[in-house]
């Protein structure tokens, strides 16, 4: 997996002169930082390798453990951060703050970064790092510009986001900026923000989106099993009635 990405970077170096896709003529400098997550987001990202190879030609991956041999964090146009931040891990806190200072756009990639995800269950005491007990969504400590939820986010959404970023399609990206307002998530969001607001229509999209079957449908309404919930927020974000991107839909259907 990592080799693939490394090759991608190498081939990119070989063809440096030919890639002038970005309007500025300069390549976007991208960093990837791995905090407390499971690497699922990176794996989802790399699943797009074949389709995105050309596109990634237009960017420079300038920072990232296992991706590039660079220990000093450089200035970056975009930094993607996977995983939540652990308060007891000084290094993580410092890296996050530094990434904020050195990047123009800080993107929380995946639910652990966006909402804490399953890491919010941690209470510490585990082997190896028993003191690591408090994990938070990134925006609790720094300003996050975009949050891309998913446990992990599907390869399809990552591809769409990258394409939108390269084409400066800010309309497509706008919802992800809005998502940064949520600092946590839970299946009970549907009860509070959809059912109790009288807007649920019993379509089942929430249940399809749930990665753990914490959300199922019963009597035409979502039914929530809290014990299975990994706090990813997908049920809410994917709910038909939580927000309504009609302009994007029309655009994709060729209706505008």
């Amino acid at each position, binding site marked *: 997996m990592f080799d693939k990405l490394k090759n991608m970077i190498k081939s990119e170096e070989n063809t440096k002169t030919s890639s002038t896709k970005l309007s500025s003529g300069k390549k976007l400098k991208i960093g990837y930082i791995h905090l407390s997550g499971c690497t699922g987001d990176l794996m989802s990202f790399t699943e797009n390798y074949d389709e995105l190879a050309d596109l990634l030609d237009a960017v420079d991956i300038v920072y990232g453990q296992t991706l590039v041999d660079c220990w000093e964090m450089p200035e970056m146009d975009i930094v993607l951060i996977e995983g939540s931040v652990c308060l007891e891990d000084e290094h993580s806190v410092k890296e996050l703050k530094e990434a904020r200072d050195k990047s123009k756009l800080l993107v929380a990639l995946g639910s652990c970064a966006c909402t804490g995800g399953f890491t919010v269950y941690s209470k510490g005491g585990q082997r190896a790092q028993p003191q690591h007990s408090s994990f938070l969504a990134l925006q609790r400590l720094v300003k996050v510009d975009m949050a*891309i939820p998913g446990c992990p986010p*599907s390869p399809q959404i990552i591809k769409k986001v990258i394409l939108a970023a390269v084409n400066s399609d800010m309309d497509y990206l706008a919802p992800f900026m809005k998502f940064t307002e949520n600092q946590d998530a839970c299946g009970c969001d549907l009860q509070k923000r959809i059912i109790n607001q009288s*807007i649920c229509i019993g*379509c089942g999209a929430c249940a*399809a989106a749930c990665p753990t079957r914490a959300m199922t449908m019963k009597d035409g309404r979502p039914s929530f099993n809290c014990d299975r919930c990994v706090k990813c927020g997908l049920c809410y974000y994917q709910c*038909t*009635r939580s927000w309504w991107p009609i302009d994007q839909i029309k655009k994709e259907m060729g209706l505008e």
Partner: protein
Amino acid sequence: MGGKEIMIHDSALGPHQEILTARATDKKILGKAQDGGIVTALLVYALEKNIIDGTIVAGDGKEAWKPEPIVATTKKEILKSSGTKYTMCPNLAMVKEATRRYGLEKMGIVGTPCQIMGVRKMQAYPMGLRHVTDKIALIAGIYCMENFPYDSLKAFIQDKANTTPEKVVKMDISKGKLFIRTSDDETAIPIKQTHGYEQSGCRYCMDYVAELSDVSCGSVGAKPGWSTVIKRTDVGCSLVDSAVEDGVLEVTETNTGKFGLEMLRKLATNKKKQRVKNVDKALDLGLEVPFTRSDLKEDILENR
């Protein structure tokens, strides 16, 4: 078929290329399905032509008239599920399962307008649908004015028709009435009397004719036993066109008058005008409704 027609932008009936009146030619389908049996016929045809390899439909649940979403991969299963159910069936809950457990590569989805909205949102923003949205091959919509929770439906059946769900053989909405038929009786409940029983989420729904589907159909605007079919996307158009060409659907003249398309347009427009008011009211109350206030809309009929 000849050259493609152009998309007609229409804020009452949604974007479409052509509207026609048709019915299935298969007697088996006509006997079992609602009205012209278009959805059933198109799904079976799409399956046989390998346009889809299975489809999510509202199938029979454990209780009578309480449907559950199923993945149908044979003509028999599609036929078994045909007919409108008049209560919510969470079809979208199956999209992931359909690609995983059933391994569908070319999925068909049948749904109410709101469900079609959900599918299109999934396609536009598939955060939590890994390798699902790229497998959607056909989206068929059915017209919908409102939908009833199962308990509401039970109330109609028990209190108004004095029977039990098990004894009901067919339900139907036409001419402003909900018909409940048993093998030896028929009760007609004026739709006015069903108000207050519909699910509350429908009060904000501005889509009557599944505007974002590939093809949508329903009985309104067609004579009894026929359906009004709205061809929308290229996928929907080519499917309907070849089904007609192959004799799977037969087409009759479309009534554009008062009891035809005018009626369809009137119902769609009225629904939108009424719901837009509900949206305004809800927003005034401070509720989290995802739609736009009427005074901020260029066209109040638009589904946004």
